[in-house]
């Protein structure tokens, strides 16, 4: 915060809208991205995340609204003058160029002298530990190597903003996790502003400073990963990130108990912005729930349930339960070598601390809960 220039937002989007015929791909979106921030645009397909990215890159023209990049209006600036970098899901490495030529290309565009191109290409290859493939063609590299080369081609010309469109979508799980760490490391080392598009909520949670969750062309909710995960404001957010148990019911005015077909459920302390009375939904994460034995502690006795199935997923166990009326509930507990799992079909009791629940407004898209 030493000078105003430094503290400015890197990207500022105001009232941005894009309409295709009768379809509104992006609907009046406002978004500010700080210098050096790692922001993920998360959402299902058709939610507008790619449209927003393409509007920022200039490959799609805005129907309405403005885009500012580094304090300057860029709404109508041609793509090649926005000073951006971008990494695509299919890498988009030039198949007719060697790795060296591919990485040198953006430097040649910038009329960097030959000798400097040579040093900078080798520097960046060293950074991603792929110096030995410098003379190969992209076809001769694995998917993971190709994606690292396309990262290198991007960072070699030091753009202040890097856009990534599902860059790890084509890689297998193990490689994807390695690449997530690699991208995080590069982000930290280079201090570059990153805008990352994905539909993979785990990836978004693992990588982002801030997640912008999109739905139907609008921003549903944005915040730090733990904000969205633990403090969702809507059913859509709760449902999209992680798994959740949702109990629909009715909240009598002034009460802290939700009336549901499964009985009255305890609610956390009232918070700003939650429904005050009427139809509402209580969300509880599976990992906040516990299977308890009869007669344990006092207070709220919990819900009666039948254990349908249990699966061990390494460090934790997932229990699938049916309540008396058939509603499915998922409970997740840590696993352990000595921990005994209840038998399939066993009658159990499921309980959670009232503070771990979150009361959310109803949503017409979530009719059946």
């Amino acid at each position, binding site marked *: 915060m030493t000078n105003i220039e430094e503290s400015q937002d890197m990207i500022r989007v105001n009232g941005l809208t894009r309409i295709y015929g009768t379809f509104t791909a992006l609907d009046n979106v406002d978004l500010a991205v700080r210098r050096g921030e790692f922001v993920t645009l998360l959402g299902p397909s058709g939610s507008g995340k790619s449209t927003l990215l393409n509007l920022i890159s200039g490959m799609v023209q805005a129907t309405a609204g403005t885009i500012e990049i580094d304090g300057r209006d860029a709404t109508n600036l041609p793509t090649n003058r*926005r*000073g951006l970098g971008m990494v695509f899901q299919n890498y988009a490495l*030039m198949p007719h160029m060697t790795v060296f030529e591919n990485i040198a*290309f953006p430097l040649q565009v910038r009329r960097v002298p030959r000798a400097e191109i040579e040093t900078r290409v080798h520097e960046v290859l060293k950074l991603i530990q792929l110096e030995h493939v410098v003379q190969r063609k992209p076809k001769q590299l694995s998917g993971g190597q190709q994606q690292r080369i396309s990262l290198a081609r991007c960072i070699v*010309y030091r753009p202040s903003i890097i856009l990534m469109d599902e860059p790890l979508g084509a890689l297998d799980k193990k490689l994807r996790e390695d690449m997530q760490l690699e991208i995080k490391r590069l982000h930290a080392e280079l201090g570059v502003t990153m805008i990352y598009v994905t539909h993979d909520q785990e990836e978004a949670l693992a990588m982002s400073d801030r997640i912008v969750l999109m739905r139907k062309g609008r921003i549903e909710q944005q915040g730090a990963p733990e904000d969205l995960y633990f403090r969702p404001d809507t059913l859509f957010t709760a449902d999209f990130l992680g798994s959740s148990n949702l109990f629909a019911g009715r909240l009598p005015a002034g009460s802290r108990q939700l009336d549901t077909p499964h009985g009255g459920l305890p609610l956390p302390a009232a918070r700003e912005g939650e429904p005050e009375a009427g139809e509402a939904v209580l969300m509880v994460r599976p990992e906040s729930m516990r299977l308890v034995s009869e007669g344990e502690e006092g207070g709220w006795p919990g819900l009666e349930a039948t254990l349908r199935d249990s699966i061990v997923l390494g460090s934790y166990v997932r229990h699938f339960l049916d309540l008396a009326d058939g509603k499915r509930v998922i409970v997740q507990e840590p696993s352990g070598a000595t921990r005994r799992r209840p038998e399939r079909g066993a009658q159990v009791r499921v309980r959670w601390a009232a503070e771990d629940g979150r009361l959310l407004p109803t949503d017409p898209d979530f009719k059946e809960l």
Partner: protein
Amino acid sequence: MNFLRTLPGALVVPLAAWITYLFLMVPSLIVIPISFGGAGELEFPPRVWTLDLYRQFFNDPTWWGSLMESLKVAALVTVLTTVLGVPAAYALQRTNLPGRAVLNGLAMGPLLVPVIVLALGLYLQLAPIGFLNRTATVVLAHTMLAIPFMMVSVGAALRHLDPAYEQVALIMGAGRVRIFFRVVLPQLRAGIAAGALFAFLISLDEVIVAYFITGPETMTLPVKMYSALRWEVSPVIAAVSTLLTVISLVFALGLMWLERRDRNA
């Protein structure tokens, strides 16, 4: 698939294929032995085997000259078709040029209009202004005929070229011209080569338009052959046909070799 594994199936299919090939090839191939026959008349099989007809062809400056004219025209047509057709195909596929449909229709037009109509139209237009009997005129007319083939060939290659290459280059700051030459063109090589081969071969054996607009000094080989058939029925025709077939074959095989090398590179 089971049908192919049975013995009759394994025989019938290749047999049918070979009969079809022969049916298509024999008329072209039969002139090859004839071309090594005597200088007296066209006969099959030839009674004597000589190179007389080839000697006659290369000693007669009108034959020899028309071959050179044809090769010159075909080479110029190939260059012109490439220079005009490739950017045109790119512009029609990748830009929001107004009136694209109309322009595309115009470029493809020569494919739809009967060649004889084109030939007559060109003749009636060019005769009064004294543009007949010029090499440049033949080159332009043949280019018009060849451009649709170049555009179809390059258009197909462009449809298979992921626009992400151009997008990523644009984001990296490259201008349109650099993107065209450094990103797009190298990846269209096979399509351009195929279009260029078409252009060369179309020009090399085009007879109708050339017949209308060439004169004694600019006579192309097919026109000379056609006249020879009408006026003299010289057996040299067989040697010329063989030569043309060989030239076409060499170019086609050369292209296939280049494509294979490209794919393996």
